């Protein structure tokens, strides 16, 4: 254990200190924005035209030009495939994982398989979601540098709380590609809580309900003496206001007689009008939908708020289960909360607000523009990390979404870091060898809630080799799991006797969809009992094999020490154990192991005595010789 030395003033914080031009960036599915703390208040930095929101849309022109934002969005109807929107949905994903999302987007991919998605855009170029996001970040960076008059010192970029390692890493990469120093990734709901200044209260428990264009997050935050802790998170990264628009657009397309065949431009025009109509219905009770057909002829229909609400009700209701689960994870009832914060443009929709009011039994907080609140909070955090703020001592803690563990003998998972642990976090555990003369450890890092490796998700495999051949249990590998503040996992292993080391940084080639995370969680609840039984069974079988092997060896080597009839008793206990081992009942195996242990106890005792006697005899001879 290392000891502390006294540091020079400020030195301990030097790593995070970087001056006053640090910004917060909300890299959203639909819109992105940048904010900065000026005179103790966070403000969104608008572009020269005064627009705060930058549509997260990037257009790649045939001549190699790249257009970002509202201008790109305007080009989308004419160039649907060369104009990438919602790139965030593809971050850290492989083509195979994104089929469901792609069914609703017009993009063409370079390849249907491979480690990352690559959109084919004008000129035959293939661009990754990371590159698309980097263009958005670069635009925001230029905007911030123009507003603040100089290079940025760093940025805090927000990500949905449910983002896994691959998605977080992809976001970080996009930041670096855009020439930003990413000070930290911050989960969006945590940022919202900061924007609301919840840290100024002495304590409380809050839920943050974040329904954006493309993602839904629910977080339960606990505040104690100004210290934040994310107690539980949940959500669905394939749920948002876009889904409302798609449901509405699908109805319009059906009415237009275009459900089956339609041009990309037509799809885009209908989607845009669906969004506009939904936004108009936030204030108005009725509106008229107008769309131009491909041949230029107009089409229109009236749309009332009632019809919209009936249509989106089942989509809104999908936010319910993650909320209830998050509360359950945090061990809270809705009445235990001190407030519910609304985040994300889609929470402006009255039907969403009504649903939240009913679910949590209270009027939600919505004083800060739900489109801006995350960026404002990120700016507060950036200011904190830059050491310029007065609240430089506020601690922000995030959590990991799924447990992290290691495969052990028999395919059983040993969880080192339980899910919902606050990050940064770490765990250390020592493992020993199972077989004699084992010269390496095969380390298999897994993620998930189930007891068996086969049911969890494999994150990485690596080997700790070069160990001296030792009897089973003598080599001891100390395994360390470290999850940094950005949720990225590093696993290192060190064998204590030989000093051999190995380490791996887990950047999975592709991430889990949040629907899969949900499913893995639900599965773990459903199969909890069966899993534990399976785990016990494997454990007992390993124990059975161990004692059977040892007994066979002893009988072969020391048959001379057996008392009359003893061999029969031991062998029948062995037969009984073999029979129990073939069954599925772990208690029966356990009892048979005990019985064999009992049957062989005296024999083992005699073997032990003889070894001790041999050792003593050796000693006395040595001593005699020593004296002589």
């Amino acid at each position: 254990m290392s000891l502390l030395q006294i540091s020079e003033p400020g030195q301990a914080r030097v790593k995070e200190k970087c001056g006053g031009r640090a910004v917060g960036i909300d890299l959203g599915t639909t819109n992105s924005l940048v904010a900065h703390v000026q005179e103790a208040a966070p403000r969104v930095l608008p572009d020269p035209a005064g627009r705060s929101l930058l549509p997260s849309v990037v257009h790649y022109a045939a001549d190699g030009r790249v257009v970002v934002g509202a201008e790109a969005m305007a080009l989308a109807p004419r160039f649907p495939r060369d104009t990438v929107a919602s790139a965030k949905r593809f971050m850290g994903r492989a083509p195979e994982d994104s089929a469901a999302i792609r069914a609703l987007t017009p993009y063409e991919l370079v390849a249907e398989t491979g480690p990352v998605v690559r959109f084919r855009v004008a000129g035959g170029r293939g661009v990754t979601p990371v590159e698309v996001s980097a263009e958005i970040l670069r635009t925001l960076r230029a905007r911030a540098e123009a507003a603040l008059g100089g290079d940025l010192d760093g940025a805090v970029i927000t990500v949905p709380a449910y983002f896994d390692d691959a998605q977080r890493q992809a976001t970080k990469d996009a930041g670096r590609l855009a020439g930003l120093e990413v000070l930290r990734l911050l989960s969006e709901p945590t940022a919202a809580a900061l924007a609301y200044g919840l840290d100024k209260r002495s304590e409380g428990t809050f839920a943050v309900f974040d329904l954006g264009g493309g993602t839904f997050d629910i977080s339960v935050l606990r505040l104690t003496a100004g210290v934040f802790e994310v107690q539980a998170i949940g959500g669905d990264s394939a749920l948002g206001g876009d889904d409302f628009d798609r449901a509405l657009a699908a109805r319009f397309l059906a009415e237009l007689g275009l459900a089956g065949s339609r041009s990309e431009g037509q799809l885009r025009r209908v989607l845009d009008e669906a969004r506009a109509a939904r936004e108009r219905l936030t204030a108005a009770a009725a509106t008229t939908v107008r769309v131009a057909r491909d041949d230029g002829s107009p089409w229109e229909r009236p749309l009332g708020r009632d019809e919209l609400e009936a249509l989106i009700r089942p989509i809104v209701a999908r936010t319910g289960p993650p909320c209830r689960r998050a509360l359950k994870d945090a061990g809270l009832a809705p009445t235990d909360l001190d407030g519910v914060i609304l985040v994300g443009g889609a929470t402006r929709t009255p039907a969403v607000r009504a649903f939240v009011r009913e679910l949590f039994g209270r009027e939600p907080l919505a004083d800060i523009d739900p489109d801006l609140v995350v960026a404002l909070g990120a700016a507060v955090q950036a200011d904190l990390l830059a050491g310029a703020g007065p609240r430089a001592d506020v601690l922000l803690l995030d959590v990991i979404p799924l447990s992290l563990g290691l495969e052990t003998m028999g395919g059983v998972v040993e969880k080192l870091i339980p899910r919902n642990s606050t990050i940064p976090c770490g765990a250390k555990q020592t493992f020993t060898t199972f077989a004699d003369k084992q010269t390496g450890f095969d380390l298999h890092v897994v993620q998930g809630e189930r007891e068996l490796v086969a049911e969890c998700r494999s994150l990485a495999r690596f080997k700790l080799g070069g160990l001296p051949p030792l009897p089973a249990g003598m080599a001891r590998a100390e395994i360390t799991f470290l999850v940094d503040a950005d949720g990225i996992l590093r696993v290192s292993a060190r064998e204590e006797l030989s000093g051999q080391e190995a380490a791996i940084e887990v950047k999975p080639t592709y991430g889990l969809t949040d629907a899969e995370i949900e499913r893995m969680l639900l599965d773990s609840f459903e199969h909890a009992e069966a899993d534990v039984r399976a785990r016990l069974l494997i454990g007992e079988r390993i124990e059975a094999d161990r004692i059977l092997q040892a007994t066979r060896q002893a009988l072969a080597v020391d048959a001379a020490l057996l008392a009359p009839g003893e061999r029969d008793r031991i062998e029948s206990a062995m037969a009984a154990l073999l029979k129990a081992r073939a069954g599925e009942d772990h208690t029966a195996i356990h009892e048979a192991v005990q019985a064999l242990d009992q049957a062989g106890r005296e024999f083992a005792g005699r073997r032990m005595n003889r070894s001790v006697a041999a050792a003593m005899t050796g000693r006395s001879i040595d001593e005699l010789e020593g004296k002589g």
Partner: protein
Amino acid sequence: MPITVTEKALGKIKELVQKRGPQTKGLRVGVKGGGCTGFQYLFEFSDDDPAQHDRVFDLDGIRIYCDPKSYLFLNGTELDYVETLMESGFKFQNPNVKSTCGCGSSVAF
């Protein structure tokens, strides 16, 4: 409960303060985010007087400052100085700690 310092640690602190020079007005202890189990101790010289809300402990002329938030986690802590064959340094004996990590500078409460 105050923050206390063992005789050995106090001796070492005085020696280090002496060596560093008269600009040293005190020592700051605290807790900050980071490290492998979530929090990390902060222990540094201070060239300033304590801030308005700091808790201040006067130990035989040496002032130790602790901000009120950190004090929630540090009250009752005894600062010790340890010398082993391998290394020497200060150690926080903190009754609030639930677990420590191997590196000893990270703690969980």
